[in-house]
């Protein structure tokens, strides 16, 4: 992870650590904090704890997003402190905000991934969002049936996605919530794939419909067990909801936030140390019983 972030994430980059609640690469976010990247534009449908932590650590100058919160808990307080003038600390500046709806953010990645100049959608009518975001525009249908809304392509400098498994060439397979990992990866100039498990290529090739991102577009494959904690990985571990609630308390207080970052990010060399600090039994408590998918047959055609 250290090498992947050093090679592919630069100051000033637009970075998308995607994953809708599921498979959020906290490990990558923490490594970016450790490597003290600055002036990042952080794109993500749902900036959650990992972006709150990155903002608290001073990595970001701008957010591109569609929903800002601690899912199921409440607000992201570090981000709110950089958003509400009354809460701004001395010397701090407001974060730039570029805001869409979910379908709009998905559409931005799709347009970026399909190399389209815009993505059309039926959102935004009579909403105030286009008034505050001049990039949400109207496009005239060439079939005489009026105007529809559009969003522009988003092509992040780097997309970072977490998944259950990949082979060494970076062919990534994922199940459960797919979010917009595929679209973000194809839209990005560079891709870092972080996975719970590196498997032989034969495992990938035994179920090719499960592949969401091919190694072709992946610049680095990182093996990082529990790399999505405190978010979850379908079948591997559950969301650590206690931490999501704890972060609500920690993040309300800048000093407590700083102390948490020191203890859990700056003072640890890597994700393995983070996992070791919790201890193996901690993660056992988050592991669900098995719910197997069943097998399908592709047939051996020679």
């Amino acid at each position: 992870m250290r090498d992947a972030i050093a090679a592919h994430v630069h100051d000033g980059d637009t970075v998308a650590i995607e994953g809708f609640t599921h498979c959020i690469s906290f490990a990558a976010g923490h490594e970016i904090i450790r490597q003290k990247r600055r002036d990042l534009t952080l794109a993500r449908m749902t900036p959650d704890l990992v972006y709150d932590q990155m903002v608290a650590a001073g990595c970001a100058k701008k957010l591109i997003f569609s929903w800002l919160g601690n899912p199921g808990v409440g607000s992201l307080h570090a981000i709110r402190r950089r958003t509400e003038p009354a809460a701004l600390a001395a010397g701090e500046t407001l974060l730039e905000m570029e805001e869409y709806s979910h379908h709009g953010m998905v559409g931005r990645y799709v347009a970026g991934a399909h190399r389209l100049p815009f993505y059309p959608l039926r959102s935004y009518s009579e909403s105030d969002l286009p008034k505050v975001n001049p990039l949400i525009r109207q496009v005239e249908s060439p079939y005489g049936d009026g105007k529809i809304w559009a969003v522009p392509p988003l092509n992040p400098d780097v997309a970072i996605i977490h998944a259950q498994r990949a082979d060494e060439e970076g062919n990534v397979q994922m199940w459960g919530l797919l979010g917009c990992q595929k679209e973000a990866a194809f839209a990005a100039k560079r891709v870092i794939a972080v996975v719970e498990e590196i498997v032989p290529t034969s495992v990938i090739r035994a179920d090719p419909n499960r592949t969401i991102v091919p190694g072709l577009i992946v610049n680095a494959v990182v093996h990082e067990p529990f790399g999505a904690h405190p978010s979850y990985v379908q079948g591997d571990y559950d969301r650590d909801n206690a931490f999501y609630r704890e972060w609500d308390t920690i993040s309300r207080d800048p000093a407590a936030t700083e102390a948490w970052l020191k203890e859990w990010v700056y003072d640890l060399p890597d994700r393995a140390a983070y996992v070791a600090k919790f201890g193996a039994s901690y993660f056992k408590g988050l592991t669900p019983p098995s719910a197997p998918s069943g097998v399908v047959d592709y047939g051996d055609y020679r």
Partner: protein
Amino acid sequence: MSEQKPASRNELMVVAAARALEGKRVCFVGVGLPNIAVNLAKRTVAPQMELVYEAGVFGANPARLPLSIGDPTIVTGSTATVSMHDLFGLYLQGGRIDVGFLGGAQIDKYGNLNTTVIGDYAAPKTRLPGSGGACEIAINAKEIMVIMRQSTRSFVSTLDFRTSPGHLGGAAASATLRREQGWGGSGPSVVVTDLAVYGFNSDGEMELRSIHPGATLDEVKSTIGWEIRTPANVPETPSPTAEELRLIREELDPTGAYV
């Protein structure tokens, strides 16, 4: 069963919201209170209802109350788990959702909703989560139901920001616009709060339908920032059953974190 505590106002709200879903087929579940109301409905008045989560799940069958709309329990045992592109494009914009269930920080008398900011957008007093999928749910789901606690701060005459359109400035103009612009939905039909249940009259304006047990008309009126339309006789919202309360307290929210 031992003697039950009487229903709290939050419980009255959740039960009334769940009952509004009776007979509905496909419901798009928002984050927070809608999540609890819809899961209660699935266990009571609408067992056949398909739960759709914007995270990408159709036909969810959650074994526990989902902690968030992205909880892994909504995936396991669901009918279909798809990308968000498919969910928003094929299911929602494609016109397959009967009811969108939304919350909000502010609502006006035409059912327009604000989930973006309190105060000025560029320099807000309070930064709220933003649209998420709410804006497009409001436009594309065939019918919208709203669940939120009422107060003069939330039931306002003028929104600070219109995130999700309701009946705009009135039903006639709204219906024309929705038709001409090809919106999929016809807008809000029901609003459920901790005090009462509201519908919308033919002008698209909110109208009191029933008051929850224990709440008064004065209390209802004094927590709304405009003069709410009120019929001559306002019925009382039917009380929760013992089974509804048991489901909330023992199965859906045993720690009392949400209700």
